């Protein structure tokens, strides 16, 4: 195999500056929204005392879950020895970090009192991160998992970019792979620990997030990779694109399988089947449409069809499928996070409940523009950072043409 040459992007074209300007505008709009929430209070959002986590969290959790998935390309290349993906590894590592940063930024900007993060509680964070608290504070380990992820992937990237450390990169890749599984599990457990809420079941949510993460991460990865190669005029052959496309198909199929099993199991348990399950799936509400149209149709069935329908042009097909998976992923988070809160908690079994806070009823929620802008800013931050990284680090192969990727390939 030819050695792959990695170079940074030029980053001087008008197109590049236009892209950066747009991204900065998106990020700026998000920050302004956050400042407004901060100045006027969260009442300008659609979030309430019943729907305490809203659209920003849909984006943030989606990004955090996708972050670990974006590392998959690198893991597949080194942990599982698929050398075809090797040229894509550095981008995969960098992207996974920038997605995580984007997601965390949204979480932090949404806080009611982010400045308190700087003030007192670092000691408390550390206290919460101590092993003795691990059975309790799931946020404690997530604090370690998130910062650690950035650190671990950073080292992995360093080992694989610097020739004399190459020999360690295999070990680092395995470590990073285990770490990413832990990270997604931890994110799932943030919800899994909410014992009082029927919608969140620890045993199911954590592995489910791991399965979803594969598809979400790969989708974002494809959405970054293809435009980059098109706009920079670098060669991108069909071999690699087709590989990614089938891989995405497999991941989507796995997620879909999981969703079906999960929902059937839930229907099997009678109480859940009648209650929250039929509410989310068959209720007359936005959650059931988000589930069927967003998650199942756009997020699963259509991308599956596109991925495995051979006659489509490879790049266009991958791009479309990936965009659909992202829409599906956001829908899934919407159903899980917001739908899960909208359904009333079962405090008094066998009784109908009425109160000023609508304890027994479905909580209403309609997101406002501020929330959406803040969520989009997370994606903006992700892209901005990865484009920036592509300009300063040598992480992109000069060519991904078929002959460079796969020497046995005969054109």
């Amino acid at each position, binding site marked *: 195999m030819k050695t792959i040459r990695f170079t940074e992007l030029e980053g001087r074209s008008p197109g590049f500056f236009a892209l950066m300007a747009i991204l900065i505008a998106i990020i700026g709009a998000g920050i302004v929204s956050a400042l407004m929430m901060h100045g006027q209070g969260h009442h300008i959002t659609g979030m309430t005392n019943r729907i305490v986590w809203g659209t920003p969290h849909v984006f943030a959790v989606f990004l955090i879950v996708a972050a670990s998935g974006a590392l998959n390309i690198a893991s597949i290349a080194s942990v599982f020895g698929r050398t075809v993906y090797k040229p894509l590894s550095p981008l995969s590592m960098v992207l996974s970090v920038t997605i995580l940063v984007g997601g965390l930024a949204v979480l932090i900007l949404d806080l009611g009192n982010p400045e*308190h993060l700087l003030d007192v509680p670092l000691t408390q964070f550390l206290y919460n991160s101590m092993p003795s608290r691990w059975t309790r504070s799931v*946020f404690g380990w997530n604090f370690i998992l998130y910062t650690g992820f950035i650190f671990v992937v950073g080292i992995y990237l360093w080992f694989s970019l610097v020739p004399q450390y190459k020999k360690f990169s295999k070990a680092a890749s395995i470590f990073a792979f285990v770490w990413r599984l832990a990270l997604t599990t931890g994110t799932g457990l943030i919800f899994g620990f909410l014992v009082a809420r029927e919608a969140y079941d620890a045993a199911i949510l954590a592995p489910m997030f791991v399965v979803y993460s594969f598809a979400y991460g790969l989708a974002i990865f494809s959405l970054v990779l293809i435009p980059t190669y098109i706009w920079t005029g670098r060669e991108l052959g069909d071999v690699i694109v087709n590989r990614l496309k089938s891989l995405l198909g497999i991941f989507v199929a796995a997620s879909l399988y999981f969703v079906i099993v999960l929902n059937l199991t839930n229907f099997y348990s009678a109480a859940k089947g009648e209650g929250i399950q039929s509410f989310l799936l068959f209720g007359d509400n936005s959650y059931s449409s988000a589930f069927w149209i967003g998650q199942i149709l756009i997020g699963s069935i259509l991308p599956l069809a596109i991925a495995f329908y051979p006659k489509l042009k490879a790049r266009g097909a991958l791009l479309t499928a990936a965009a659909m998976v992202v829409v599906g992923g956001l829908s899934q988070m919407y159903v899980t996070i917001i739908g899960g809160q909208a359904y009333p908690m079962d405090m008094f079994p066998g009784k109908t409940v009425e109160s*000023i806070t609508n304890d027994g009823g479905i909580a209403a929620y309609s997101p406002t523009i501020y929330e959406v802008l803040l969520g989009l800013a997370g994606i903006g931050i992700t892209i901005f950072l990865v484009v920036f990284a592509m300009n300063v680090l040598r992480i992109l192969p000069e060519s991904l043409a078929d002959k460079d990727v796969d020497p046995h390939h005969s054109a």
Partner: protein
Amino acid sequence: MSRKTNQSEGKINQYRRNFLARTTAIAGMTVAPGVILNSVAQAKPVDQPASNKNRWGLLIDANKCSSGCNSCVTACHEENGVTGFGNPETDAQWIRKVKLTDKQTQKVQTIPLMCQHCEHPPCVDVCPTNASMKREDGVVLVDKHACIGCRYCMMACPYGARSFLHEPTTEQKYPRGQGTVESCTLCVHRIDDPNGPRNPACVEACNAEGHKAMWFGDLKDPNSEITKRLKEYGGVQIRADLGLNTGVRYQNLS
């Protein structure tokens, strides 16, 4: 339902046994004479920290709670300076009246619902900054100096007992501020009264209205009215299945 009730009764029994065991242990400690307001308990000197010799709690009799009455709510919000903006979805609700209709029997009851001051509070478990905390005497509070407003505690609380402050606050009586979470404090400023613990505003209002559906007291003091009543008539926890050992108990909830 029956499973839940059995479980909770088991807990209460255990609870009672604990009280009995302690009775002998602290029998020497008698309540000082002349303590104000149905001799709730001994005064804590202001320079002393709250101690785990006490555990403050409430007992609420669902049969005595009057369905048309909202006095506890009004009194609580007045006492603590909890003002709203006319939007029940985003306004703070430290305590709320809940109307329950049994699906089988159609029996209607109302009860006040506030923070249950759990012994094992999920809100404290999940809080990333330790802003949610439990005092030694069992009162669960939010330390707003540390609260970052992430609302994870609100996700975790099984009773919807907490509120996020969606608007800037002014004219506070007790500290409360935009972007932080708050909930019933069990009127902790009254518990710490240098002249001895006083009934919380909600209990006081309920008594003043003549319904006398609420009792406040020390669950660890075998001589307090609340423990005696619990011992005699029992009392259930809401969502006893979660094993949180709440400090707020209900009677005649059926």
